């Protein structure tokens, strides 16, 4: 039975963790395959020839890529346990909007900018962080007054957001920059603590120290590469 569902992922990827959590919430057994992104498996390249990225879900031999697409697939295929999206079309549209917001605004537009500006402590990084904090404020505004983004129970948007924001706290520790503090975002922090206290959710998180060490090492490598480029 476990062979029917395979998840290709990496231990540090927040996108990978989204799928892990979605599968666990549905009570599904699956076979997890850790990918080495510097040496991608044949299975990964065959299953996601277009993007060659993780996560990829393979169900009965059929591959699905893109974490939010995979989450919707899981929700539609295993409808009855722990629904991730609400039933009402308008509420679904709102949930999809916020999941997209997280992927486009929080991650793509801003976080990667701040992440790339590893070594530029100058204006570029300041601007990126300012922009970023505006996006987080929007996110917090959506959560205010609710238990979870999904309402009474956590759902699609909570899963989409949680691992990303968790990753931010790791990045914050490594960069020693104020990306996400409790003072600035009390509502988000309270929500994160609630989810960290949930056994299934916490079980999908990478070990903290290992994660910090990993991001720190990547930062050091990026610094070294940048200084070599400057010197050359």
């Amino acid at each position: 039975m476990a062979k029917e569902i395979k998840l290709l992922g990496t231990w540090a990827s927040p996108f990978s963790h989204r799928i892990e959590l979605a599968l666990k919430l549905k009570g599904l057994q699956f076979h997890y395959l850790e990918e080495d992104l510097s040496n991608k498996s044949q299975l990964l390249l065959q299953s996601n020839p277009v993007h060659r990225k993780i996560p990829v879900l393979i169900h009965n031999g059929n591959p699905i890529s893109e974490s939010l697409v995979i989450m919707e697939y899981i929700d539609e295929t295993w409808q009855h346990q722990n629904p991730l999206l609400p039933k009402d079309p308008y509420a679904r549209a709102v949930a999809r909007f916020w999941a997209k917001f997280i992927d486009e605004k929080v991650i793509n537009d801003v976080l990667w900018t701040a992440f790339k500006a590893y070594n530029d402590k100058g204006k570029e990084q300041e601007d990126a962080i300012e922009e970023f904090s505006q996006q987080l404020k929007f996110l917090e505004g959506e959560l205010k007054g609710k238990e979870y983004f999904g309402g009474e129970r956590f759902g699609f948007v909570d899963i989409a957001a949680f691992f990303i924001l968790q990753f931010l706290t790791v990045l914050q520790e490594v960069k020693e920059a104020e990306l996400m503090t409790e003072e600035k975002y009390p509502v988000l922090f309270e929500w994160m603590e609630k989810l960290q206290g949930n056994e299934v959710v916490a079980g999908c998180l990478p070990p903290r120290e290992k994660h910090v060490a990993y991001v720190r090492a990547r930062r050091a490598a990026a610094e070294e590469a940048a200084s070599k480029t400057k010197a050359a």
Partner: protein
Amino acid sequence: MANELILLDTWVSPFGMRVRIALREKGIKFEYKEEDLTNKSDLLLKMNPIHKKIPVLIHNGKPVRESGIIVQYVDEVWHDKAPLLPSEPYPRAQARFWADFVDKKVFDAGRKVWVTKGEEQKSLMEEFIGHLKTLEAELGDEPYFGGEKMGYVDVTMVPIYSWFHAYEVSGNFSFESHCPKLVAWAKRCMQHDSVSKALPDPEKVYEYVLQLRKRLGIE
């Protein structure tokens, strides 16, 4: 309860076109409001305070935002008329994947072409064509991405066809020579009223692009 639908949009937006096509395919009546993006209406700012972008579909006073999300919403509410997404989960996932590809790769490279010039623009144009070829391979020998009928991916992708002429003139090439099957597919879609009514005159799009580049100081 009366279904009141207002679409905030602009004539040239491929994102807005997606919504117009979806609504017309399903025979749904709506009120179209042209926005001036240099002077956004209070209604737009109220309905989409976060992105301040079109299209926004206002259904009985409630805003739905982001073109792909709007099309899915319309498909779910009016599910009995001309369904756009397949009914089974796996084909649905495939449709969503390819619509995401259209957004992240095709439209993104296509947009960047207009805000660059020289070598950078040339390389982006090549990237754009590369993505079109990937899509063409996905289409294969089917009449539409949706199979026998137009579906979610067709609606997501076809609006960019109205911009093809502008690309061809600017880049001095023809899409027909690079991806003939895709051009044939677009022409097939244009035979549908919902599509031909939504897509603007390619000459007008080209004029718009020239003005845009002037305004941005590129040309």
